[in-house]
């Protein structure tokens, strides 16, 4: 690949065969530029937020020092305004009078094939964390540009293998990791045994059962985060509600938000609602997943092409509600290790959940230390928008992107005795932080928030 020789870091691209599985026939190289311009026009005309971000940026640079990808790499293209410029320059050149007549003066440029490769590199180095939107004096949202850029690249057939594989797995099995129903049932039985061993309480994790509540877990909970799944099960059991998970939609995440909003995001949203209506549930409760909850809370209601009258809430909001009603007896002394909280970007800046996380946290642990900055000003873990690539070059970038997070965690001092907990209630954060706390030697264990709730509801027998 000649471009990697020039220093452009890119994740592994999906092959043509992979792309066909998500219904995209890659555009041949000699037609890419033309197709990209056509798509860019459509996107610009459709999204007001995108057009405004293209036309109103004054290049003040306030975003630079507030973006952890730039802080970690000092790569000028990781300055949010500059990242957006990859697309903005092209947009201006073709679709604004000033760019048509004075391209050099205003910094507009013709689109070339190489620019698309550059976009593929840098739009997949953006965590879509929206900290730039928070600090921008006009609230211009580079995340919108990244999303548009990734959508455009998707239509051209340029998608990371990871994202394309997830899209294909989702379409086939209803979850990102390709869990089969047999696998889900077996894992749930295993987890039921685990709960029994741990607490001595018989708690069931119903799969595809008639119920009032449809719980949408993250499929990563079935591979890496068992305590997140059991935590949710303990909570529902404690309340005594009729709940179930569905083998048709065992996925809180929605990678469509991250690379293909037009088709994949919509399809995954519809899948949730179709299943909820099929099961006849009264309520959908979302699991620990940051971008997925943003999709479920903010995007889903506007994407349905059938009426959606089933309330959708997040499990943390439910836990908070019952804590405030005094309905939960939480043995917070079980969680006495020092804990700090990483506010997932999508929870903080897109889903209004900062207060909730703290109410739940304070009710479940005895030694909670805030990191700085926190809440909506928190920095991303460096894995946001699922750039969880593991080829050496991209993995190295993940380490750099998480440098700011590591610094924040170190400053709290929770890991100084090696027994700290870094609570990261989001599957992508967890997947990113499991290796990163080792890379940065932070002395903390990564856990979800509902994990801690579960422990406090049903204290382990041996404690």
């Amino acid at each position, binding site marked *: 690949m000649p471009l990697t020789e020039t220093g452009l870091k890119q994740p592994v691209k999906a092959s043509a065969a992979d792309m066909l599985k998500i219904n995209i026939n890659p555009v041949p190289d000699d037609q890419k530029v033309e197709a990209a311009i056509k798509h860019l026009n459509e996107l610009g005309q459709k999204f007001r937020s995108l057009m*405004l971000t293209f036309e*109103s940026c004054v290049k003040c640079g306030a975003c630079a020092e507030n973006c952890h990808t730039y802080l970690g790499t000092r790569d000028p293209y990781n300055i949010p305004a500059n990242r957006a410029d990859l697309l903005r320059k092209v947009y201006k050149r073709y679709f604004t009078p000033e760019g048509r007549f004075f391209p050099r003066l205003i910094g507009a440029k013709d689109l070339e094939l190489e620019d698309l490769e550059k976009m593929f590199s840098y739009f997949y180095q953006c965590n879509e964390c929206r900290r730039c939107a928070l600090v921008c*004096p006009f*609230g211009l949202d580079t995340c919108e540009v990244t999303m548009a850029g990734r959508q455009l690249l998707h239509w051209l057939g340029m998608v990371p293998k990871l994202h394309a594989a997830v899209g294909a797995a989702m379409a086939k099995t209803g979850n990102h990791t390709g869990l089969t129903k047999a696998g889900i049932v077996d894992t749930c039985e295993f987890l039921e045994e685990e709960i029994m061993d741990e607490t001595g309480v018989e708690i069931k994790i119903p799969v595809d059962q008639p*119920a009032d509540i449809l719980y949408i877990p993250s499929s990563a909970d079935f591979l890496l985060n068992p305590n997140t799944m059991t935590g949710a099960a303990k909570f529902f*059991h404690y*309340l005594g509600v009729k709940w179930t998970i569905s083998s048709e939609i065992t996925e809180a995440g929605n990678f469509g938000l991250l690379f293909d909003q037009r088709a994949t995001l919509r399809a995954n949203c519809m899948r949730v609602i179709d299943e909820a209506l099929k099961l006849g549930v009264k309520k959908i409760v979302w699991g620990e997943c940051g971008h997925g909850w943003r999709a479920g809370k903010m*995007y889903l209601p506007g994407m349905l092409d059938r009426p959606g009258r089933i309330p959708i809430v997040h499990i943390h*909001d439910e836990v908070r509600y019952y804590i405030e*009603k005094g309905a939960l007896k939480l043995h917070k002394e079980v969680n006495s290790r020092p804990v700090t909280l990483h506010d997932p970007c999508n929870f903080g800046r897109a889903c209004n959940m900062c207060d909730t996380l703290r109410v739940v946290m304070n009710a479940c642990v005895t030694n909670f230390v805030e990191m700085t900055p926190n809440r909506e000003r928190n920095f991303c873990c460096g894995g946001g928008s699922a750039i969880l690539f593991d080829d050496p070059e991209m993995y190295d970038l993940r380490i750099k992107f998480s440098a700011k997070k590591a610094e924040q965690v170190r400053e709290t001092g929770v890991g100084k005795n090696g027994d700290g907990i870094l609570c990261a209630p989001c599957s992508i954060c967890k997947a990113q932080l499991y290796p990163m706390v080792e890379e940065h030697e932070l002395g903390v264990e990564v856990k979800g928030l509902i994990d801690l709730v579960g422990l406090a509801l049903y204290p382990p027998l041996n404690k």
Partner: protein
Amino acid sequence: MTYFILQILPYISVSVLIIGLLYRMGRWASGRIVHNITLTPAPTTQAGALLDIAAEVVFFKSLYKADKSLWSGGWIMHVALFSILGGHIMGIGLLGLQFYYIGLTSEHTSEYLSNLLGTSFGVVVLLALLYLLYRRMAINEVKQLSAPSDYLHLLMLIAIVTVGNIMRFVPEWGIHYEPVRDYVANLLTFTPITPDMEVMHKPLFVLHLLLVQILMIYLPFSKLLHIPGMFAHRWIINRPYVEPAPGMPGVAVGGTGHAVSGGQSASGGVQ
């Protein structure tokens, strides 16, 4: 040439400004707010959202929290610039007697205050603009972001402000409020200006006006669109959001039905 700048160009520049802005804002309006991309924590009422937007517009709240030095330069520059714009309307429209008309001061003091404020803000805005220019050239990140036009916008404002300041500080090169008021009145009433009018014989005034008109002409085709753009984009991301009510169906709340002892729940198993 002077005649063109004073008599013909104003109608062109104002038309271009208005039509240009309408064209750009019309384009924005034709795009949709496709998804709910509200930044949180969000207020729950429309009034709360408008208050948020107002705080951003008036105080540059987000920028203040993010970058204090840029905020100082940027906020001071904008406030001084808007004060000067207001001052132009007051000075030319009310001949600097605005403080007299609201009953605060005597006629003389009012004009004196008007001059003093105008001169002071003129200096302040110049200093702020020079800082912003320095910042654009000195801070590596901002430099990497800048296109030639980014410098030109600053240089243009600096030129306009400098000419204005010279007119303030060198009285014989300046001009009084009355002749300008008469000139503006002529423009507004479509009355032709005459060669004996004072404005025709003040080269710096003509230059000042020319530069401002050039700015007005390119404003709708430049990043200066951030003025309406700020309102338009804040309107998208600073919105009220009302949370759906939590609470599970079929759950009695308030401790009843949850006889909890020794960490064991008495609430029934799930069928």
